[in-house]
């Protein structure tokens, strides 16, 4: 090993790094111009179905959606731009013939186990067709035992299914800035396991957002302080979630029947 050649190599690589840095500044400008946020089909396909939703649409009954989530299901002071509102708009757009009601129940700072207690009560109060349960973030931040977490979502999903509603699980956000502090993988894995066991569609928010970041749709590392990017990300999430829900309801088949 010759130290000289090693140093040269390092210098070359550093130069490359600097070049990549300036290239990225151009990328950011491109972002603003074309906000596509395509989601590859495999991230929106699911084997599990939403029979209650399909039935409601088929019989032209109102579709009532309840979103239960933590703070990442909203944007502070701009709730109308958050993904639940965007989801409602997209659903209304695609189902013009039926009324779509959507309400959001934020359970800030509560773990899945703590949310469990209020789930059934919420369902009784709102009698929704579909409950979209966004969870995992608080548990990951408090590093709740993943087994306990799995037990909690398991209980919650069973309670919801027994209450006669369809369930969609929404997992954590992809948050690269806090990756060194919040360990998401065990919670993502356990949500996938529970979703599989109970045939519940899982909206993989984490993978989708990471895809957008990798594809250059959004720079999720950005230190930008305004709400602008949050709004755009939520708009894209809402649209993707509407596609996901209608796809899981197997709408094409439902309409044929």
């Amino acid at each position, binding site marked *: 090993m010759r130290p000289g050649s090693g140093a040269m190599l390092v210098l070359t690589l550093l130069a490359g790094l600097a070049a990549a840095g300036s290239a990225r500044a151009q990328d950011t400008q491109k972002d603003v111009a074309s906000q596509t946020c395509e989601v590859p089909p495999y991230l929106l396909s699911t084997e599990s179905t939403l029979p209650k939703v399909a039935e409601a649409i088929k019989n032209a009954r109102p579709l009532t959606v309840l979103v239960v989530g933590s703070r990442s299901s909203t944007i502070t002071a701009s709730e109308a731009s958050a993904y639940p509102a965007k989801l409602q708009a997209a659903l209304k757009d695609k189902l013009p013939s039926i009324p779509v009601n959507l309400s959001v129940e934020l359970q800030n700072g509560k773990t899945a186990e703590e949310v469990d207690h209020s789930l059934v009560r919420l369902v009784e109060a709102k009698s929704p067709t579909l409950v979209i349960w966004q969870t995992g973030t608080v548990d990951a931040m408090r590093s709740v035992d993943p087994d306990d977490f799995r037990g909690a979502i398991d209980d919650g999903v069973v309670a919801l299914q027994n209450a006669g509603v369809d369930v969609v699980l929404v997992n954590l956000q992809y948050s690269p800035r806090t990756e060194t502090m919040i360990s998401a993988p065990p919670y993502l894995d356990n949500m996938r396991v529970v979703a599989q066991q109970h045939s519940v569609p899982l909206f993989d928010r984490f993978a989708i957002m990471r895809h957008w970041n990798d594809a250059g749709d959004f720079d999720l590392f950005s230190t930008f302080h305004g709400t602008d990017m*949050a709004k755009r990300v939520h708009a894209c999430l809402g649209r993707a979630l509407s596609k996901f829900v209608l796809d899981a309801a197997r709408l094409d088949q439902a309409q044929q029947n």
Partner: protein
Amino acid sequence: MSSIADPVAGTPLSDARAAAAAPAIALPVAGERELRLDLFRGMALWLIFIDHLPANILTWFTIRNYGFSDATEIFIFISGYTAAFVYGRAMLEAGFVVATARIMRRVWQIYVAHVFLFTIFLAEISYVATRFENPLYSEEMGIMDFLKQPDVTIVQALLLRFRPVNMDVLPLYIVLMLFLPIILWLMKWKADVALGLSVLLYALTWHFDWYLTAYPSGFWIFNPFCWQLLFVFGAWCALGGAERMSRILSSRVTMWICIAYLLFAFFVTLTWHIPQLSFLMPKRLEQWMYPITKTDLDVLRFAHFLALAALTVRFLPRDWSGLKSPWLRPLILCGQHSLEIFCLGVFLAFAGHFVLAEVGGGAFTHALVSLVGILIMWGVAWVISWYKHTADKGASKTKRPVINADLAGGSV
């Protein structure tokens, strides 16, 4: 199976020695360093570093994508192996008290290294907390709340109860090393009993769900009651167990079982990466198998590591000429200074996250950061070894070389 998927710990020492030394522990012949251990530990260090960075092209070269176990298993196993190798000799030659004293000095070094890393981590976090206020992540940024009470946080960190992500291996290592004197003492008496007790502890932990709590909530990410199994197993192998297993290891049946299991694990992991394939997985099997926990060192992970190790030992002989090749030199160098390089790796992972956050993240930059990190690890390992062999030599000619285990790596 991809060829990059099989880096693993080497085990038995092939030089034939009388198994007659049966009751007590059999120490490997002193002399040539076991380069396979250095090689695979170096590889584990690189892989751990890469796995701690955001996913990029290089991530596809890490073994966790091709089976159940990952670099942590390799690292802990080899650490157990080399620790027993070095301090087992000390215990035989200088007695229990002296060996314990040396081990405790090592524990202290690792502890200081951990605290040093924590300081750097705090600096990084504080910077991010003050600079980064994207409303998209207002919830996730709540994780910084611990900065509001540094009095508690720092004390908890010193007690090893508050550990940021990616800083879990050293605390595990400290605990394992703390118990090394007892492990070695038991091994000296009856190695198989020590291993048996370790298995028992593992089984009881699974049965009674024992764990260590962490701060502010949660538990140790690597449950020491479970991970000790790999460490003790490594020690057992080092102290003659590997030799006694050599007949099993060289049997064709073992080889085929290992290959079959590795293929099975590879297929299962494939279904994680390509969700379109998941319909091929029987639901029954999924329900029985998942989740494959890393915290408690799932049996499937342990078995996967064993299979990899058995095949490696079989196909990569101790005297393989490639071990002397300059191409593997960087890996071996890193493996020989594992405490320093491990800490450097953790630091570089923080720094890498930071650079990616500041500079931005194309696929190219991501891969470049990993690559530069590895080059730095290699460079620093080279400098350390230069200090050891050149700079320090002249200064302390009269001093006897102290047995210094690089994260219990044998400089034998």
